[in-house]
């Protein structure tokens, strides 16, 4: 399967990332020798059994976790601490409960000390982008789970980061809401062409959304597959249920599930 050629300028590069924990008698290798280049407009989905280190990898790219070895380069500069260049959307919306939705979205732009007019423009733009134009004055606890997660996505996008990391952002939602959120996210990506690094354990979700798919295996945590999603639809909206019914989709799903299961099976 082919590798994506990465743009040297504006992209994200992970060079030789390793993460080891020292236990009493042994060292645990959570990640080993991760090499990865992401283009500035990529949509990368990361699949893998639990314990394969995908969340650790996200935490390292975000700057929350220091790797034992290796560097994260963003646009050529080393990224060591969390900042607004790398946006993060968590599994739970994680909004500030004391701020209304508009103010939550404004938070990052306010931290960036942008002028008032630009702040307002961004808030309105991103509220509309995620379809919450009417909900700006509501407090987070007044919103449904899906709306909260959309607000969280808008809040992250509003700072216009170079890359958005998403850690199973829809896994806590019910099936119907999840599908509508996936459609929202696809539309948002088509409009913004923002680099998205999306962790999921849902193979369908990865096949529907990802332009590029990574599969990770544990012990030690590493990338075992890195390929362009052959069933990816490059432009426009499409029916997710039709796509799921396609034969190529079904075969690929079965293949990926068996590959992921391989990883969780062999222990060494």
């Amino acid at each position: 399967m082919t590798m994506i050629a990465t743009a040297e300028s504006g992209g994200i590069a992970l060079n030789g990332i390793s993460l080891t924990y020292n236990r009493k008698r042994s060292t645990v290798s959570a990640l080993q020798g991760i090499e990865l280049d992401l283009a500035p407009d990529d949509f990368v989905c990361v699949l893998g059994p639990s314990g394969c280190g995908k969340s650790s990898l996200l935490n390292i790219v975000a700057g929350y976790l220091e790797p034992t070895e290796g560097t994260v380069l963003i646009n050529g500069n080393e990224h060591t601490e969390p900042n607004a260049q790398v946006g993060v959307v968590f599994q739970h919306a994680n909004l500030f409960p004391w701020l209304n939705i508009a103010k939550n979205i404004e938070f990052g732009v306010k931290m960036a000390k942008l002028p008032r007019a630009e702040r307002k423009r961004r808030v309105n733009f991103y509220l509309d982008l995620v379809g919450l134009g009417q909900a700006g004055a509501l407090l987070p606890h007044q919103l449904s789970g899906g709306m909260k997660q959309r607000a969280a996505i808008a809040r992250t996008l509003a700072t216009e980061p170079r890359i958005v990391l998403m850690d199973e952002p829809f896994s806590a939602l019910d099936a119907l809401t999840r599908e509508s959120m996936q459609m929202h996210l696809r539309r948002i990506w088509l409009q913004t062409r923002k680099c998205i690094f999306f962790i999921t354990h849902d193979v369908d979700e990865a096949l529907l959304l990802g332009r590029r798919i990574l599969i990770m295996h544990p012990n030690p945590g590493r990338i075992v597959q890195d390929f362009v999603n052959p069933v990816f639809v490059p432009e426009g909206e499409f029916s997710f249920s039709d796509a799921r019914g396609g034969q190529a989709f079904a075969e690929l799903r079965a293949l990926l599930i068996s590959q992921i299961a391989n990883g969780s099976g062999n222990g060494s």
Partner: protein
Amino acid sequence: MIAQRKPHRRGKEKGNAFYLGISGLSVLAALFLWWLAARNAWVNPLFLPSPSDVWAAFADIAKEGYKGSTLLAHIGASMRRIFIALAYIFVTAITLGILCGRVRWIRAIFDPFVEFYRPLPPLAYYSLLVLWFGIQDTSKIVLLFLSGFAPLFITAVHSSSSVPIDRINGAKSLGAKGWRLYVYVILPSCLPDLLTGLRTAVGVTYATLVAAEMIAAVSGIGWMVLDASKYLRSDIIYAAIIVMGIIAILIDTALRLLIRRVSPWVEH
């Protein structure tokens, strides 16, 4: 025949008004018992003056004042001491408490002293405070400050150290750092807890008030109780205690309303 039952939620079938009504009736019943006990002289009137005697005493001190000052002036003197102490407590306990909750070594500096003085009964060190700060209001305010500081400080430490890590990380990824992280994220996260802690602090300072006004005071609602007891004026003692109780309920209610207003997302 099967009995018909209206569907209703178990447990919470009555409105608040119902329970308020029960509380009101319970108070009325107590007043009636009091009146009955005084009227039939079940108890020595020195221990239990009749409600009308207490009301007359209240009307008298409200109109004529007590020992040179009006009732309002006595209440004002007490409230002044309490509110000056609370203002200092609010600023210092919250600032120091949040810092101690977030930075381990700062906490290590202050912990031994707070833990040492916290369980001491305020009267144990009051005479020392009088030596240091004189017999005027300063020593009383310092005593109230010390008694109310510990509960709010401990609340602030606990609350700021348990702010969810995802919320802190998320804020950092939106560009918040340094003092802005404290002002815009940590402080508002702790605010509901801090106001609850303030309620505890108010209770403790209020309880210490009578002790504070025992030494060298000529004003204050607490002093009034102690002075009246010298002359066995139990009618005044009862009247003053009822006034103290009502003021405490008013302050607490105001704080509860404030909490609900600033943190509508917290279940009360």
